[in-house]
């Protein structure tokens, strides 16, 4: 059974329809990358899956539960967390407080989990009492991902985790994402650095004009000439 299944979803902002029936499948423990040109509806798809935009038609199933039309705070409780592309941290809170907020709905002792996440991001451990607003872009991105991991999600939705970062930092973030995935968390991410991301993706989807265009394993998409020409910049 697929962990996350999106079937023929139609959605958009207000009266404007962006997705015209998109489907997607994520198996447990997979890394799935969504690529495509600007305006293809990649971010819209993530937001719709997470309940931030309403589903006009189609179905979203997560871990055997039909979550179509659920609000984000209910979806979070099932084990799906979302890291938006921008404004994804609480800048006036410290690193540790950001993580505590990530665990807001947990009623058990989450300190061990927090230490695991600090072990994953040693950079942050030394800065745990620093206000996140004072950190660099890459460090903020790590805080955002760490915050989402506090709930031990089964799947993590990442909207352009490498956007606006220096090449070295992009590499580091991708490495961390792979590590997180190895610990058993499925990853669904939208990426502009498509070539790099597809290299370590189990499956990739190409969206264009709000519709599925291609899909296949990461390496297969990289070798496809048409995709290379149209979507990976030659």
């Amino acid at each position, binding site marked *: 059974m697929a962990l996350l299944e999106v079937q023929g979803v139609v959605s958009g902002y207000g009266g404007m329809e962006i997705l015209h029936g998109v489907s997607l499948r994520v198996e447990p423990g997979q890394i799935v990358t969504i690529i495509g040109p600007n305006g293809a509806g990649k971010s819209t798809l993530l937001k719709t899956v997470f309940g931030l935009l309403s589903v006009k038609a189609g179905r979203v199933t997560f871990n055997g539960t039909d979550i179509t039309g659920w609000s984000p705070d209910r979806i979070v409780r099932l084990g799906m967390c979302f890291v*938006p592309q921008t404004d994804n941290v609480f800048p006036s809170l410290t690193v540790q407080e950001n993580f*505590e*907020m990530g665990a807001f709905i947990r009623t058990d002792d989450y300190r061990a989990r927090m230490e695991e996440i600090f072990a994953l991001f040693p950079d942050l451990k030394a800065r745990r009492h620093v206000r996140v607003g004072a950190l660099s872009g890459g460090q903020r991105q790590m805080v955002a991902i760490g915050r989402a991991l506090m709930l031990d999600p089964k799947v993590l939705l990442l909207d352009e985790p490498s956007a606006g970062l220096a090449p070295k930092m992009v590499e580091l973030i991708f490495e961390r994402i792979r590590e997180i995935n190895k610990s058993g968390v499925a990853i669904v991410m939208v990426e502009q650095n498509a070539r790099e991301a597809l290299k370590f993706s189990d499956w990739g989807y190409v969206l264009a004009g709000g519709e599925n265009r291609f899909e296949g394993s990461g390496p297969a998409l990289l070798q496809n000439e048409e995709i290379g020409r149209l979507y990976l910049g030659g």
Partner: protein
Amino acid sequence: MLELTVYGIVYGSIIALGAIGLTLIYGILRFANFAHGDLMSVGAYIALFLIQVVFPLLGVPQERFGGTSFGWPLILAMPISAGVTALIAIALDQMFYRPLRARRASPVILAMASLGAAFIVRNLIYIFWGPDKINYFPGLYRPAWQLPFDVRIRPDELIIVVLAMGLVALVYFFLQKTKLGKAMRATADNPDLARVTGINTEQVRVWTWGIGAALAAVAGIMYGVNALLYPEMGWGFLLPLFAATILGTVGNPYGALVGGLVIGIVQRISTAWLNPAYQPAVAFLVLIVVLLVRPQGIFGGRS
């Protein structure tokens, strides 16, 4: 001059308590609550009702401590009135603002609604208590203490400052150390992310109203103790409250404390040269200067 500064600190503490609530509500609910001053009046009048009507019926002892107004009536009235005022504010939120939020009304619409709420509240006070200026404890003689450097201060005023600082410390501890307090700061930072994270933002809003209104009620009672009660009292505080909030950076409760004290001291010291009736104009002047020179306030970084 030193004496005026001391009076300014007393008055500023009262402004600060009101401004902390105003700034929290602005930061978390994202609109300017023009009814905040009137929440102060509500708190003051509920305490009056308790002290003059309810407590004598219950036989609460009337003795007071030393030369102060503080005896059991005032000490009991404060938390009860703060609690009731908090409930009134939460009820107003559910009745007025929640339906507007559900319709995604703009901050301007919410602010206008709060202006309407302010009129309703003030006129209810007129209906129940009339327009007269009232004293909590009429005819009570409260002599001032003579402090060094020719400063005279009434024991009441000393208690007001100490109590205000204690409450500010309590709010600071709450925001800094408790889960709900951190959730309030997180919601003020980024309400969308708070929702995505699973923070119960509706619960956060309810607590914000409750805490803001309770602090306003205590501020109103303190002003009543220090001066007089009248239906327009809270409305008159609105300008210094907003000046303090903006001076201390909107949304920053610690800034509101500093802003309140600065406005209070500046207003009182201005009376050395100006007719005391011009004090609201002084607050307005400070507000204009802040908006011209440093619109993000003392504690605002880059936004």
